[in-house]
C-alpha cells in the first residue's frame, strides 16, 4: 500500500518537472523559433524531468522520506530510463535531424540515422576500455557498463566547465573593474563606427554608379556582338574594372573594420552594464547566506551536532543541486542563443539535452563525495561496484588541465587586446 502512495508521489513530481522543462523550452530556448517537431520538445522535457527526479531521490534519501524499498525501486527505474534516453533515444534523434538537414540523404534518412547511431555506439563502447572503471565480473549490457561510460563523459564535461569557470570568472570581473568604461568612450567608439559606415557607403556609391554607367554603355554597344564586340569590351572596360576591384578591396577592409568596431562597442556596453549590476549587488547578500547567519547568531553555542548534521547536509546538497541546475540552464540558454540558427536549432537542442543528462548523471556520482557516510549507501547500492575514487581523481585531473589551459588561453587573448585599444 505504501508503495502505491510513494509511487504516486514520485509520478506527480515527475510530471511537475516535465511541465517545468516544457515551459523552459518554450519560453526561453525556443522563443524566437518555431517548434515544428514536437518530438524535440518532448525529449528535452523528459530528459530534464528524469534528471531532476534523480536529485529528488537523493534529497528523499537524506530526509528519510518514503519507504526504503520503494526508494530503491524508483532509483533503479529512474536510472534505467535515463540511460535508455541518453544512450539510445537522444543520439538516434540527433543523427536523424542532422541527416534531415542534408538534402542529398533525405530519401533514406532512417537508414543513415541508424548508421550514425551505430557509429556512436561503437565509439561510446570503445571509450570505456582505457579507463579502470569496472571490476571485470560484469556482463556486457549491464547498467554498470553504461553508467560508467556516461559517467566518464559527464565528469570530463563538468571538470572542463568548472575549470574554465574558475579561471574566467575572476578574470572577467577584474578586467571589468580595471577598464572603467565611461560614456564618452562609448560615444567616441560609436562615432568611429558611423564614420566607417559613411566611408563604406561613399565607396559603394562610386561602385554602383560606375557599374550603372558601364551597364548603360554596354547596352548600346551590345548590338555588335561577336569578335569585334569582344575586343571592344576588353579595351573599353579594362581601366574601369581595375578601378572597381581596387575600390572593392578597400570596401572589404572597411567592412571588416566596421565589424570589429561593432563588436568592441557591444563589449563596452556589456562592461558598463555589468559594473552597474555588481555595484548594485554589493549591499545585499542572497537569502541562503542570510538565513545561515541568522541561524548561527541566534542559536548560540548550544549546537546539537547530531540533530543539525542531517539538516545541514540536506541544505548543502540542496544548494549544490539548485545552483548547479540553475547555472546549467543559464549557460545552456546563452550557448544556444550564440550558436543556433533556424536550421540547426533542433540538433542543438538535442545536443544540449544529451549534455544536460550526462551532466546530471555525473553530478550524482560526484555528489556522493559530499554526502555523509550513511547516505552514501543507496548510491553505492544502486550504481553497483563502480570505482568511485577513479571518478573523483579523474575530475581533479581534468579540472587542473582545464584551468591551466584557460589561463594560457586568456593570457594569449589578453596580449592581443591592449594593441587593439591603443590605436587612437
Amino acid at each position, binding site marked *: 500500500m505504501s508503495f502505491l502512495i510513494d509511487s504516486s508521489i514520485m509520478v506527480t513530481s515527475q510530471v511537475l518537472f516535465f511541465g517545468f522543462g516544457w515551459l523552459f523550452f518554450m519560453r526561453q530556448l525556443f522563443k524566437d523559433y*518555431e517548434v515544428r517537431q514536437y518530438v524535440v520538445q518532448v525529449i528535452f522535457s523528459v530528459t530534464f524531468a528524469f534528471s531532476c527526479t534523480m536529485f529528488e531521490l537523493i534529497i528523499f534519501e537524506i530526509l528519510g522520506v518514503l519507504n526504503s524499498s520503494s526508494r530503491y525501486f524508483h532509483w533503479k527505474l529512474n536510472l534505467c530510463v535515463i540511460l535508455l534516453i541518453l544512450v539510445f533515444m537522444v543520439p538516434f534523434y540527433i543523427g536523424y535531424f542532422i541527416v534531415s538537414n542534408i538534402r542529398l540523404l533525405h530519401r533514406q534518412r532512417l537508414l543513415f540515422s541508424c548508421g550514425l547511431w551505430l557509429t556512436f555506439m561503437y565509439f561510446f563502447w570503445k571509450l570505456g576500455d582505457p579507463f579502470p572503471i569496472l571490476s571485470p565480473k560484469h556482463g556486457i549490457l549491464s547498467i554498470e557498463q553504461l553508467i560508467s561510460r556516461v559517467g566518464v563523459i559527464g565528469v570530463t564535461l563538468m571538470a572542463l566547465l568548472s575549470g574554465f569557470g574558475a579561471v574566467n570568472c575572476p578574470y572577467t570581473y577584474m578586467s571589468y573593474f580595471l577598464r572603467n568604461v565611461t560614456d564618452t568612450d562609448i560615444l567616441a567608439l560609436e562615432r568611429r563606427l558611423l564614420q566607417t559606415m559613411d566611408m563604406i557607403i561613399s565607396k559603394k556609391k562610386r561602385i554602383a554608379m560606375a557599374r550603372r554607367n558601364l551597364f548603360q554603355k554596354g547596352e548600346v554597344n551590345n548590338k555588335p556582338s561577336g569578335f569585334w564586340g569582344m575586343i571592344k569590351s576588353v579595351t573599353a572596360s579594362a581601366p574601369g574594372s581595375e578601378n572597381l576591384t581596387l575600390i572593392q578591396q578597400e570596401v572589404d577592409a572597411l567592412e571588416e573594420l566596421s565589424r570589429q568596431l561593432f563588436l568592441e562597442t557591444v563589449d563596452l556596453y556589456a562592461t558598463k552594464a555589468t559594473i552597474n549590476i555588481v555595484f548594485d549587488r554589493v549591499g545585499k547578500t542572497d537569502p541562503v547566506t542570510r538565513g545561515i547567519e541568522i541561524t548561527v547568531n541566534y542559536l548560540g553555542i548550544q549546537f546539537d551536532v547530531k540533530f543539525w548534521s542531517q539538516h545541514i547536509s540536506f541544505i548543502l546538497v540542496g544548494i549544490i543541486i539548485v545552483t548547479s541546475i540553475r547555472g546549467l540552464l543559464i549557460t545552456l540558454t546563452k550557448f544556444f542563443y550564440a550558436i543556433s540558427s*533556424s536550421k540547426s536549432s533542433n540538433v542543438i537542442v538535442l545536443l544540449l539535452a544529451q549534455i544536460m543528462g550526462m551532466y546530471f548523471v555525473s553530478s550524482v556520482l560526484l555528489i556522493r563525495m559530499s554526502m555523509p557516510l550513511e547516505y552514501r549507501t543507496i548510491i553505492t547500492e544502486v550504481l553497483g561496484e563502480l570505482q568511485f575514487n577513479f571518478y573523483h581523481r579523474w575530475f581533479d585531473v581534468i579540472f587542473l588541465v582545464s584551468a591551466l589551459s584557460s589561463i594560457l588561453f586568456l593570457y594569449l587573448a589578453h596580449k592581443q587586446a591592449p594593441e587593439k585599444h591603443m590605436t587612437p
Partner: protein
Amino acid sequence: MASLDRVKVLVLGDSGVGKSSLVHLLCQNQVLGNPSWTVGCSVDVRVHDYKEGTPEEKTFYIELWDVGGSVGGASSVKSTRAVFFNSVNGIILVHDLTNKKSSQNLYRWSLEAVNRDLVPSGVLVTNGDYDREQFADNQIPLLVIGTKLDQIHESKRNEVLTRIAFLAEDFNAEEINLDCTNPRYLAAGSSNAVKLSRFFDKVIEKRYFIRDGNQMPGFPDRKRFGGGVLKNLHYD
C-alpha cells in the same frame, strides 16, 4: 560628376530570414552565392530613378542598411544596434514565410526601430498585443517582404498569404513575397518591381518633397530616450 541626394532605408528582420540575400539582389541584381552571418551592419547602395519615365525623373542613391541580430538579444547588442537607427527615411521589414515567429517578431523590430522601446533592458512588455495606435502617427514608410516563397508547399500557400496580408495591413504597408535566390521575382515590369519602385518613390518623396511641421531635412527623425542629450553631440 555631381553627387546625388541620398535616402536611408533600414532592412530589419530576424537572423536567417534572408536580409543579406535580399539586399544583394536589390543592389547588384545578382543572387548572393555564399550567404554568411551578418555581424553588426552591412550597407549597400542602390541607384534609383525617382519618377522614372516622367519629365521630373531624378536619380537618387538609396542606402540599404542591413542590421543583423535577433530581436530578443542582450541589452548591450540592442544599445549598439540603436546607433544605426538614426535619421531613417524608410524601413523594409523582412520575414521568412516558412517561419511564423519571424513575422510575429516584426512588430518588435519596428518598435525598436522607431524607438518606442522605452525599457532599455530589452524586456518588451507586449507580446503580440499589438496596438494600432502606436503606428498611427508613424511617418516612416514601411514595406513588408516575405522570403523563401519557393519553400512553401502549394497547399499551404493560400493560408500563408492571407496571414501575411493581415500583417501588412497592420503596418499599413505594401507586401512583396519572393524567393531571394531567383531574380525572376523582381524582373523589370513585374508587379513586385512596381511595388518596390513605388515604395522607394514614397520614401524619397517624404524625405525631399513634402515639408510638414515635423519633418525638415538634415535633422534626425526622433530623439532617443535615455541618451537624447548625449546623442546630440554626434551631429556637429
